[in-house]
């Protein structure tokens, strides 16, 4: 757009300002006003939500505890070569003595011990034992011998290797742990087979989520198809049967399944009553994977039906009629004409259900027993029971990355602005 008239005169507003500047000012004001409206919520979310997530990401690599508790030892250890196979010399032990005296005074040595215990079991007791002995040590005598006398693990090279390996302020150790790996002398290696749990748990989370997504699709497709085909009055009525579970509390639905699936529950009673199973042969359907799959399919089914329905509603019935008039039978008309048009709905519903299910915590915790739990249950365990917050943060970060990647896929299929509710 040109801001001059044909004879070269600058266009001005009524009060004589150039039009371009006036427009620019108005636009700037409008931008500012829009931004000021958004700003309160943006700040609120940044503080209450984004900051905690960033804090968690930071916590998954943060490791300043060794440096803070044993500052002199960390410096002294820089000279020491962990590959030498020899225990550090007297100077390092002297530094360790100074640090330990301070740490025992502040009672921080047990915290360090339990932190390093995640990497090598036994270090926690080593620090507690040494902490008790430190007051009786004599600064004049050789300290190395006194430490070795306090606990012979100080003479073990691996103890020092762990200490040196975790002295930097940042560590990838939690992530290695989350992948069931550790940093051995020859670099990254997998843990012994009997200590590997997380890869298996990630695998199970993925597997169960896929099974749940597929069963939601299997049950949701016919329902969405029916709802889209029926006249609006009937389908609105039937929609209530989909929306009521959607609006019912998650815990109500989980407790309903807990009641239904129990060995003394309604389903087993019914099966015994119709003589399908004997009283002694009651099915075990809860506290295992079956329980998790049934309950979560029920809970997530509306999230499959609603996007499928909204896509199917837009498919014009004339296409199927045209196919049939051209000689296609019912199946061909459905499979070749109707189904391809419903694929976007399948994509949207499946990704949504999958995203929701890999992060699920409550239902697996209540009906999953030990064989039906997800990675999120392990995260909760590390936060509230084992207190290994770094590992919890690392596992959470991995889960978060998986969900965000899936969400980008979802955004590509549906678009973030097209999310519909209810």
């Amino acid at each position, binding site marked *: 757009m040109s801001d001059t008239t044909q004879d070269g005169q600058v266009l001005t507003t009524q009060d004589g300002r150039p039009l371009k500047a006036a427009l620019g000012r108005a636009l700037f004001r*409008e*931008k500012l006003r*829009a*931004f000021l*409206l*958004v700003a*309160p*919520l*943006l700040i609120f*979310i940044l503080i*209450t*939500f*984004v900051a*905690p*997530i960033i*804090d*968690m990401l930071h916590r998954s690599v943060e490791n300043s505890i060794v440096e803070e508790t044993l500052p002199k030892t960390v410096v002294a250890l820089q000279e020491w070569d962990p590959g030498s196979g020899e225990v550090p010399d007297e100077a390092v032990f002297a530094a360790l003595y100074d640090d330990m005296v301070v740490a025992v005074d502040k009672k921080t040595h047990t915290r360090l011990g339990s932190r390093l215990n995640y990497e090598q079991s036994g270090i926690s007791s080593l620090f507690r034992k040494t902490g008790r002995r430190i007051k009786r040590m004599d600064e004049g005598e050789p300290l190395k011998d006194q430490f070795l006398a306090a606990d012979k693990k100080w003479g073990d090279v691996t103890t020092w290797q762990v200490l040196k390996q975790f002295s930097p302020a940042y560590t990838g150790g939690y992530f290695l742990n989350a992948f069931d790996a550790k940093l051995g002398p020859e670099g990254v290696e997998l843990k012994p087979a009997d200590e590997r749990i997380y890869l298996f748990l990630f695998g199970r989370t993925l597997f169960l989520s896929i099974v749940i997504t597929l069963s939601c699709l299997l049950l949701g497709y*016919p*329902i969405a198809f*029916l709802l889209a085909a*029926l*006249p609006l009055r009937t389908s609105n009525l*039937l929609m*209530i049967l*989909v929306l*009521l*579970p959607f*609006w*019912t*509390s998650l*815990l*109500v*639905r989980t*407790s*309903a399944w*807990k*009641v*239904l699936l129990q060995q003394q529950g*309604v389903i087993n*009673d019914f099966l015994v009553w119709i003589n399908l199973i004997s009283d002694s042969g009651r099915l075990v359907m809860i506290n295992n994977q079956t329980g998790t799959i049934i309950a979560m399919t*029920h809970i997530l089914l509306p999230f499959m039906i609603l996007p499928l329905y909204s896509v199917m509603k837009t498919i014009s019935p004339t296409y199927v009629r045209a196919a049939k008039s051209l000689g296609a039978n019912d199946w061909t008309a459905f499979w070749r004409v109707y189904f391809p048009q419903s694929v976007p709905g399948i994509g949207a519903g499946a990704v949504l259900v999958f995203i929701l299910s*890999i*992060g699920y*915590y*409550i239902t697996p*915790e*209540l009906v999953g027993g030990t064989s039906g739990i997800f990675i*999120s249950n392990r*995260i*909760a365990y590390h*936060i509230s029971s084992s207190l290994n917050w770094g590992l919890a943060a690392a596992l*959470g970060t991995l*889960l*978060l990355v998986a*969900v965000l990647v899936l*969400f980008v896929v979802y955004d590509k299929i549906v678009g973030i602005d097209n*999310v*519909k*509710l*209810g």
Partner: protein
Amino acid sequence: MSALPPYASPLQRTWFYSFRFICGLIFFFLIFPIMVILPLSFNAQDFFTFTKEMLSLKPEGYSLKHYNDFFTNPDWQQALKNSFLIAPVATLLATTFGTVAAIGLSQSHVPFKPVIMAILISPMIVPLIISAAGMYFFFSYIGLQGTYVGVVLAHAALGTPFVIITVTATLVGFDRSLVRASASLGANPVTTFFKVQMPLIIPGVVSGALFAFITSFDEVVVVLFLGSAGQKTLPWQMFTGLREQISPTILAVASLMVFISIALLTVLELLRRRSERLRGVTPG
């Protein structure tokens, strides 16, 4: 599929009815678990299954004792009180912030719109366990862990995306020239907002508020981590009840909560009808 044509072959006829039957079974699967807890909550025994007396419809098989327990047990009453203390405040915060922000976002010149939108929607996308973990670490650091304020703020954050989405959806159909008309007639922006814009977008605001309310009212993961015993909500009490000593009182609570859901669903449905009717009358 909506009706069977008169010329349908026997095979088509069979398929038509068997498809309806399958759909009936799936609807049964959807609704049965919710419906079954209603009669079970009137069980006179402490069982989770139908007793012989209940099946033969004898009055002595039924009782209100589980409801009685819910209304007299101090643990449940405390939880009920907390739920109704936390959810409305969180809803109010989420709705206010969310509505204002949605109006800002709907204007045509918002800088960094996609980034802002992604940040504002993120509480809905991130799995609850991760939000809970992050908030637990961060809120204990700033001293809000185990406080009423902490739980309310967290719930408000989780509820805002729903408000943003529903209000944005109603703003799409909002005619911007009405704002200009109002301004040209001398109204200031605040008057315009309350007298012109608000009445038109109120269905979106209310349904967003309902979503925010149910998010907070149903939420258990974040409250488990962020709350202390003083902030026990109904879902928390149900969760611990289901995990430790499962008592039939849970069924009474669950039945009452089903009625709350039915009430919310009805309000939403009425709102939807109202906005559809309005959309039919107003031009463009």
